[in-house]
């Protein structure tokens, strides 16, 4: 289900709690387009907003943010060291954000690269356990040939929610391209 367009008249912005088809769906030009909105959950504790997909968003944030590289005597160009200034305000648990898996150089044996990237990704996602939002993290890697690799990630939530995330990368001459 996809969000094809947001009606301008409502001036309503998409929020991370927005569900793509909370308000139904329509077929537009052959595509199944959802009407976005908030999904409400009625529980004995009261009414709340559904946050399905929240954990997936958190995993993508973690894996799409470059972690902070170790300090160098020669320094870095502004904005190229990685990390985010807000990590210094984390008071409990690992005081770091992002992952260093994109810092793996595109040199050497490609299988070693793939294994290293998977290890770094798994290490990064262990923070979900430390922060109490996941009970288990599984990361598997696969070399697809022609310089391409795939990471398959499964996050076991604290409840019944499990999240699967897949990430592909291709190694070119000078580095990895991620999508």
């Amino acid at each position: 289900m996809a969000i094809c367009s947001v009606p301008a008249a409502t001036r309503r912005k998409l929020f991370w709690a927005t569900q793509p088809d909370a308000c139904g769906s329509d077929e537009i030009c052959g595509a199944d387009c959802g009407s976005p909105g908030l999904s409400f959950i009625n529980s004995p504790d009261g009414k709340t907003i559904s946050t399905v997909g929240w954990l997936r968003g958190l995993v993508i944030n973690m894996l799409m943010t470059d972690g902070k590289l170790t300090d160098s005597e020669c320094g870095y160009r502004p904005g190229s060291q990685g990390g985010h200034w807000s990590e210094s305000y984390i008071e409990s648990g690992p005081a770091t954000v992002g992952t260093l898996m994109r810092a793996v150089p595109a040199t050497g044996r490609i299988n070693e690269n793939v294994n290293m990237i998977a290890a770094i990704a798994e290490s990064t996602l262990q923070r979900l356990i430390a922060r109490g939002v996941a009970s288990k993290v599984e990361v598997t890697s696969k070399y697809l040939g022609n310089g391409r690799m795939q990471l398959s990630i499964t996050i076991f939530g604290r409840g019944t929610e499990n999240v699967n995330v897949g990430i592909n990368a291709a190694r070119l001459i000078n580095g990895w391209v991620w999508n």
Partner: protein
Amino acid sequence: MELDMTCKLERPDPQALFNRYLNLFSSTVLGGASIIPESNEWYAASVNYAIAEQLYAVAEQAWKERDPREACCENLQELAAANGVYPRPAVFAQGYVKLTGTANTPLPSPLQFAIGLQNFITASVTTQPSEIGANGTVVIRVRALVAGPAGNTPGATGSMTTVVAGVSATVQVCGGSFCNGAVAEECEAFRARYLRRLQYNPRATNTWIIDKILEWPCATRALQRAGSCCRCADNLPADCENCGCKDCGGKMEFYVMFDNSFPCGIAPPGVVAEIQQWLFGSPQGYGLGQVEIGICGRVFAVNPLPIDLYIDIADCISTTQRTAIQNQIREFFSTISPSILLSSRSIETIIAGIVGADKNFSSRFELVDPLDAVNTSLSSCDLEPNCDFLPCVRNIYINQTGSGEGVCL
């Protein structure tokens, strides 16, 4: 009571402010759920915190910009300009040159000179000597045409570019240099000068002395001696009221009142003498007291002038109004100065404020001791105490019979 010296401009600890925005976001958006680092909520709250931090920084900087110690140069100049202080512009070097020539040769004005790489001109057209002196020389004050320090040391000799028959073109720079040439005052030099000016608090002013007197334990008022103690400064005959300049303004003469310690606020002469010695030293003028060297003055003891006050109100007033009248009049007497004219109009203004101006009332003063008549001039409805006497109210009689007892004669 302990003085609260807490700075009112809040600047929270960064972590506390960050947590405040995390909690705000959690309570208003997430229903109290905790915010996990790296989540969208975390980054949204981080941005809120960053904006708040910027606002605090702007507020703090704006606060500092009102302080001449920390203001940027542009704002410093505006602050100083409000007090009439401005950066000094560049100054033209000035000095003296000696001309030689035939005695009594007339000189045009202005004269122009080239000395070293600098050009100079007669500094004052009106005061330039009009001819060479009888001894064949004349000294001219000149100034550089370009401001700055370069004009201070152009060289020991130069030439007069204005051609005057009978006068040598070669001139001699008196002393070999000129003076006062300077660049425009720069920001930090101007800041230092302005701060010195703000911090300068001359101790020979009446305001400073009055503030100093009030540091004396239990002193409640310090007053400059005036009123009936003043005399005509230019010795005009008789009527001092027609005299524009009285001799009180230039004198360091004061009274000290202790309204909460002594009846009528009048301290015993011994207390006053002690304050005078503390303030002006003994002997005076040698810097042995609080005031600067060379400053002399006196603190005068005040003499009480007991009076009764008669008020006649023809209309009916309440007990509360009666009490209010008495209280406000006694409060008024705790504010008046010695040697100053006291008018019954002042009393009636107080009464009008309580019972209304439409009521029919009058008031008059009466000396408690008739022998005090020599210490005052009681005319019509006014009481003018002699020098160093202070009217001191003893009884306030309020009569509602309309008998005219309060009417002054």
